[in-house]
């Protein structure tokens, strides 16, 4: 057990250094989009996030679309109230973006992808 500690420490330092350097290019994104059927708003949101991901997170993102009409229990578990909601599970912190994702600046802010 004792030899694990330095390993962890080194990992933390590594993460911290990465953050300081502002290099997020390797971070993996896990995103979930909760929608209610194929409403115009749903499709709009989906198209929007798909475009962002393809443009900025190519190859390192995971996007799952969940129709809460079909899976209501997931709406309960994930505390979904407004739809569409985009949940950024990874990287931390967890963030929820409600709306049709039409406000690009806010979406990027929420995804921590906004350029400084």
């Amino acid at each position, binding site marked *: 057990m004792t030899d694990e500690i330095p390993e962890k420490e080194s990992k933390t330092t590594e993460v911290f250094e990465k953050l300081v350097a502002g290099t997020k290019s390797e971070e993996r994104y896990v995103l979930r989009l909760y929608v209610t059927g194929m409403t115009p708003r749903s499709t709009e949101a989906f198209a929007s996030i798909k475009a962002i991901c393809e443009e900025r997170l190519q190859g390192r993102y995971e996007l799952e679309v969940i129709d*809460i009409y079909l899976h209501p229990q997931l709406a*309960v578990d994930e505390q979904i109230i407004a739809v569409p909601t985009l949940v950024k599970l990874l990287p931390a912190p967890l963030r929820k973006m409600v*709306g049709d994702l039409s406000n690009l600046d806010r979406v990027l802010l929420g995804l921590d992808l906004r350029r400084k």
Partner: protein
Amino acid sequence: MSSTFAHEVSISPGLAKAPTGIQGLDEITGGGLPRGRPTLVCGSAGCGKTLLAMEFLVRGAAQFGEPGVFVSFEETTQELTQNVRSLGFDLDDLVKQKKLAMDFVRIERNEIEETGEYDLEGLFVRLNFAIDSIGAKRVVLDTIEALFGGLSNISILRGELRRLFRWLKDKGVTALITCESGEGTLTKHSLEEYVSDCVIVLDHRVTDQMSTRRLRIVKYRGTSHETNEYPFLIDADGISVLPVTSLGLQHTASAERISSGIPRLDAMLGGEGYFRSSTVLMSGTAGSGKTSIAAHFAAAACQRGERCLYFAFEESPGQILRNMRSIGIDLEQWVDKGLLHFHASRAAIHGLEMHLATIHKLVREFQPRVVIMDPVGSLTSVGTRQDANVMLTRLIDFLKMQGITALLTSLTSGDEALEQTVVNVSTLVDTWLLLRDLELDGERNRVMYVLKSRGMAHSNQLREFLLTDQGVELQNVYLGAEGVLTGSARQTREATEKAASLLRHQEVEAKQRERVLKREAHEARIIALQKEFEAEEEVAKRDSDQERSREETNRQDRDRMGISRQGDKVLKDAEPSARSHQTPRVRT
């Protein structure tokens, strides 16, 4: 529980209602909340909204077979479960039985980024999911305004809430939505605009360091409802609203009479005592014997086998038992038999409403025929005189509706008019006994009189009474030049009368003796006269006998002479038998 209310809940035929099962609320709403429609409950923090909502669901599930969904925006399911466990609600069990579904909706503003247009379909989905999972008939949203804290687009929220309430209506569930009250408006976000069927306002006020919860129905579309503010309280059994004024004056008057426990007092009250289910007020100065007379009444009730509930606001039960034993009233036996129940509490420990509620509760539980409150006046120390008056009006109405005979004692302080009670309930009571002290000849004596007694021919006399080893004893009335004689004056008068009566008695006896002697003398004289007469008669008889024998002798002498002369032989044959030979003449 609720069946003890004599006043049955009247359900207006037009509007279907979902009974809440909450003590009193169904009475003032005329049967419950509008079925299949949303109801708004607003109030400030800590006034009991969540509990009211929870009780509505739990009672619905447990008593009326209507499963319910509780959507909480503020407390987690666990917290809620713990909070209401103290009230005897086992939410876990209800959830297990599929009678209750709970959903905690958490909205954290810092986690949420609004990126455009959205709707609250997620909430709808969750609600629908919960409703369908148990076939819910009732829904609670507590407190929906939390949405305004989590989401910033007010216009979307308002539109969605409007849609939500519409949707709930379409879904046919009886919904209860709680809201924070705002300044100047019923709710902070004017949700009352959307929920127009029924609006209930809860309030929590502190007056003179006494907090009182109040409930008012602001609006109830399509039904007549009580519009007053009703005090309610939260105790170990949940919420109880006191709809007492709604009882009105419909109580039936009983013609049955019950004894006051003091025979001579009964005699003063038309000979038979109080009316059953009437209210008796006994007012008097300190130490005038109010509690003793009350104890007599309690003992008499228990003797009849009736239950009696005794509210003591100034003495402990032990003290009352001891004191009453000293005047020969054994109340302890009735306590042991369960016929007499004491409830002793200082008036100042609760607000008036709490007292009223406690009394209600005990009356419902104990089901007494007789209630004694000793003294009611101490309740004024809690609230204002007006409040106490209102409370007593409600209490008296309530007891009358239950057919309970109530005896209230009231202390009159020295600086007040005697015929005025501390709480102005004199117009409400049916019988009013006034006890007072009479100071005369350096003594203070207790007197009582019946100031009023509705519906009976009562005595108008001032009567002195004594507290003896055998209890309260009413004395005879002696009127002197200065009015009623009491104490020593009465005793002196009694003694004088006794002496006078003895003298009279002796005189009568002497006369009687004289008469007896006279009669004896008369009788003796009669006997003497009789004897005299008899003696005279004797003499007369002797004389006549002598006369007769002389005549006989004379005749014999004549006969003898005749025979010797032989001259009158035929005459000897002329005897009646011999003369009858002539009768055949008549036959022919």
